[in-house]
């Protein structure tokens, strides 16, 4: 939608946005109705003093519904004056663009998820989660009037990722909700909720009908999606015209993002293989027998947190960043920023060996004489990179035993798991943690590039 004048763009988006707000109004109205019907579930929040009027949760959602109903015509109007009222103020957008960079984005999402996790008992409450959903939807709607934001979010191949974010949020909420209930029950010595539904039912009709309904629903959804959104088809392939940015399919963008920190042999080959191998290893290294077949967090906190770091924090956030926030030349762009191919970012990253030899030892990096034999050249390279090599080897071999010595938790783990399983587990986790470590080292004032840098052997780490 670049190159379209703003008022024309607003006209184009107005139909979609108006309907969007109508649907939100409907959604809240339904919620209010359901709460009002099952009046045991609606809570009285307070009474309006003077007038004997109970303000209940149902009433609140009705007000929210009316609010969306009111702004829907503003969106339908397509009039810049009206639409400005339902847009994020320009100053806010500029502020967000200015604030956003890979560091703030990544650390910010990590902190947000950690915050949600720590206070999960509060956030899983249906009314809190529902408010969160409404706020997210409103923020999204108010961003859609920004042409740059709309251009990336509505790109046909990006739509699934918007869906993925909301689906993940919903299912994470659902799972956490059930886990919190179960954890409370377990604390009181009760069995998990899943156990209560232990009676057997016939597969025909109970399961077969559910499956049938699921199939019909998915078919309907897919048909709707296919009619509403045309599959992308760009110009015919040309091996001389390189698009900028060139992006891998969205589900691999986490790997492409890793290319910023790792060389291709790591980001494209070793790490994906480690991810697959690591996933396969999970059942064999998780020795915790509890938490099998029901939702719980407290009974398997370590496994839970590690998995979420890998999945939500590293895999999903990097995909979202790669899709929405990486533009031409793989530069970082704020969500409301124009994708300018001429944006320059200073890249002056420094290798560890340079820090060691030049800054710390006050000499120059060892270099092999021109006429040295191949073997001698390798020797020189190893000597030059020795600090990094030792650091990496130490990281993988010394930290696991150090953890045992320093922490009771890892000590028990080691005793229960045995040497091999313990080393596999810790090395997989250390490998995973190396990515955030490399990110931090890169963002730090040192702008560290490689721990080990042997470009002559294409071995950079």
């Amino acid at each position, binding site marked *: 939608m670049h190159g379209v004048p703003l008022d024309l763009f607003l006209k184009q988006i107005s139909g979609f946005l108006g309907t969007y707000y109508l649907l939100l109004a409907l959604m809240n109205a339904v919620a209010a109705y359901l709460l009002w019907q099952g009046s045991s579930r609606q809570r009285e929040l307070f009474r309006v003093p003077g007038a004997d009027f109970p303000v209940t949760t149902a009433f609140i959602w009705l007000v929210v519904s009316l609010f969306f109903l009111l702004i829907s015509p503003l969106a339908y109007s397509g009039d810049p004056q009206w639409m400005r009222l339902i847009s994020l103020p320009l100053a806010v957008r500029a502020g967000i663009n200015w604030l956003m960079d890979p560091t703030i984005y990544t650390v910010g999402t990590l902190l947000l998820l950690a915050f949600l996790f720590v206070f999960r008992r509060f956030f899983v409450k249906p009314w809190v989660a529902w408010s969160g959903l409404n706020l997210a939807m409103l923020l999204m709607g108010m961003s859609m009037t920004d042409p740059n934001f709309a251009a990336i979010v509505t790109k046909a191949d990006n739509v699934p990722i918007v869906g993925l974010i909301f689906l993940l949020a919903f299912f994470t909420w659902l799972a956490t909700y059930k886990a919190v209930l179960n954890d409370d029950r377990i604390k009181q010595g009760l069995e998990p909720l899943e156990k209560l539904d232990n009676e057997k039912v016939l597969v025909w009709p109970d399961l077969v009908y559910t499956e049938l309904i699921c199939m019909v629903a998915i078919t309907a959804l897919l048909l709707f999606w296919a009619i509403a959104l045309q599959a992308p088809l760009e110009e015919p392939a040309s091996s001389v015209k390189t698009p900028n940015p060139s992006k891998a399919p969205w589900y691999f963008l986490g790997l492409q993002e890793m290319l910023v920190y790792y060389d291709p042999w790591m980001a494209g080959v070793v790490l994906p293989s480690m991810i697959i191998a690591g996933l396969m290893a999970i059942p064999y290294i998780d020795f915790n027998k509890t938490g099998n077949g029901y939702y719980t967090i407290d009974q398997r906190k370590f496994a839970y947190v590690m998995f979420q770091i890998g*999945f939500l924090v590293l895999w999903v956030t990097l995909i979202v960043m790669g899709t929405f926030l990486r533009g031409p030349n793989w530069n970082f762009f704020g969500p409301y920023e124009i994708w300018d191919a001429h944006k320059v970012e200073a890249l002056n990253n420094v290798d560890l060996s340079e820090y060691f030899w030049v800054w710390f030892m006050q000499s120059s990096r060892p270099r092999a004489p021109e006429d040295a034999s191949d073997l001698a050249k390798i020797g020189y390279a190893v000597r030059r990179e020795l600090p990094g090599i030792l650091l990496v080897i130490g990281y993988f071999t010394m930290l696991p035993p150090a953890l045992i010595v320093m922490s009771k938790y890892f000590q028990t783990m080691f005793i229960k798991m045995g040497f091999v399983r313990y080393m596999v587990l810790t090395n997989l986790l250390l490998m995973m943690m190396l990515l955030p470590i490399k990110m931090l080292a890169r963002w730090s004032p040192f702008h560290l590039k490689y721990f080990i840098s042997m470009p002559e052997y294409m071995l950079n780490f």
Partner: protein
Amino acid sequence: MPSLGEIIRESQIWKSIFRHPAPVDRRNRIVVMLTNFFLHLHPVSIKKQGIALSFTWCMGGVTFFLFLVETVTGVLLMFYYRPTLEWAYNDILALRDVTSLGILRELHRWGAHAMVITVWLHMYRVFLTGSYKPPREFNWVVGVILLLLTLLLSFTGYLLPWDQLAIWAITVGSNMARATPFLGYEGPGNQLLTIDGIDMITNASDARFGLLGARFVGEETLNRFYVLHCVAIPLAASLLLAIHFWRVRKDGGISGPL
């Protein structure tokens, strides 16, 4: 007067197919699960929580259904689409502009995206309920391979429209293979694979070449990805799906608290 339904259900043809009365009473609801080929994947009865939507999210089932949708729409698309440089792009263009059932392409593409999402959600659910724990360890491993195959199916299909989006996404993706340790032309350690001073790993013999069938994404690649996408990977996935479902039953059905 017997109703039309009764006449049909009493006919020799109907009885030859189903062999038992309609599943309206308890006995026949059990019999139907045992005698029907498609239904015998399921047990006859099941714990209530095992079929609770809030427990399984039905994500494995939805993934499988999407796999079937992809198979059907994919076969239909194969009737139109020719994987050659001359025709590939034009056939897709025709699907969009001319062919009456061109929406099959949309169904196939969005179905593929949806399948990647649902397979992740399924894995997520299996993890969060701890359902990979004994005795289901091996089925988790089978699942991980299925996850990989799902991604590869999607990746190989991405090239087939042969537009700018397609070849550059595949170029970016497959460039990484160039850096495979030892086996990639630009990977660490490839210098070690030298015989009598002759490099064994060149840009015409490395891992990326094996994947693309050429030094760059070209006609050979299109053919290779087409065969992988339409034949090899679906066959492998079908086999693993059969094992996956078989193991769900053999491992004691959907997991639940003991």
